[in-house]
């Protein structure tokens, strides 16, 4: 077997596993979101649930909150729901990306990398990166807004007297996927050109 085909087959297996993991993440986050939503709607005595951790995450910083600054359980659940929603959206994008990547790998496993399906799926992947960046920017903004909405008072109480005069919740989003999209568009063009060359080579005797 051609070494390139072998590599493509190995990569395909890796992405097959990634697809399963993403599916599990997607289903698990959806189930957890339903559970959290049900808890909020049914409104049982949430104080009896021991799993609500007194932790605030500010980016990479985790703050363990003292019992006197008790976080409202409903707010923790609402924020959890937002995070789960974000995870679900990321998983869906991941699943779509894996689908396109596997479509690209299929002709490569058959030893024919210059088929129209490759260039087409590279382009789809580039568009997916652009849409993902836009959606992620919106969701990050929403998450930041909701964090301020749910925990703004608690954070204000926590820093009271610490010398901090103002708190603001800015949107921070990863724009590197736009660069990835640019590279994918270029690759798509290269593969389209290669496809034409391959056709010419196939029709030459």
């Amino acid at each position, binding site marked *: 077997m051609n070494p390139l085909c072998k590599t493509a087959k190995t990569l395909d297996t890796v992405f097959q596993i990634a697809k399963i993991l993403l599916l599990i993440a997607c289903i698990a986050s959806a189930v957890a979101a339903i559970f959290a939503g049900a808890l909020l709607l049914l409104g049982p005595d949430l104080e009896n649930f021991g799993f609500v951790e007194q932790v605030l995450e500010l980016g990479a910083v985790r703050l363990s909150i003292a019992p006197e600054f008790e976080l409202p359980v409903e707010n923790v659940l609402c924020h959890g729901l937002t995070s789960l929603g974000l995870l679900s959206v990321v998983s869906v994008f991941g699943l779509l990306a894996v689908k396109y990547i596997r479509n690209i790998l299929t002709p490569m496993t058959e030893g024919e990398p210059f088929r129209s399906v490759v260039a087409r799926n590279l382009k789809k992947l580039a568009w997916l990166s652009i849409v993902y960046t836009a959606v992620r920017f919106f969701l990050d903004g929403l998450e930041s807004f909701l964090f301020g909405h749910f925990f703004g008072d608690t954070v204000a109480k926590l820093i009271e007297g610490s010398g901090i005069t103002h708190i603001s919740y800015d949107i921070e989003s990863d724009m590197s996927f736009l660069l990835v999209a640019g590279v994918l568009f270029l690759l798509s063009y290269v593969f389209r050109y290669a496809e034409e060359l391959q056709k*010419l080579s196939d*029709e030459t*005797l």
Partner: protein
Amino acid sequence: MSIILRLDRVMADRKISLNELSEKVGVANVNLSKLKNGHVSAIRFSTLEAICDVLDCQPGDILEFKREEA
């Protein structure tokens, strides 16, 4: 395309079959059939040379230019 292949005519003149030519030239029967029917977009000099050698003809006997009418 304005280049027309006249392989079938030369083959008929030399009374040689596609299978025989395929064996002598070393090109697959299917590919030679494509060449005969004009279903190729290019031909290598080495292939042309082998065909001309077997058929004892000039490239001009196989290839013909016909101006496309506008």
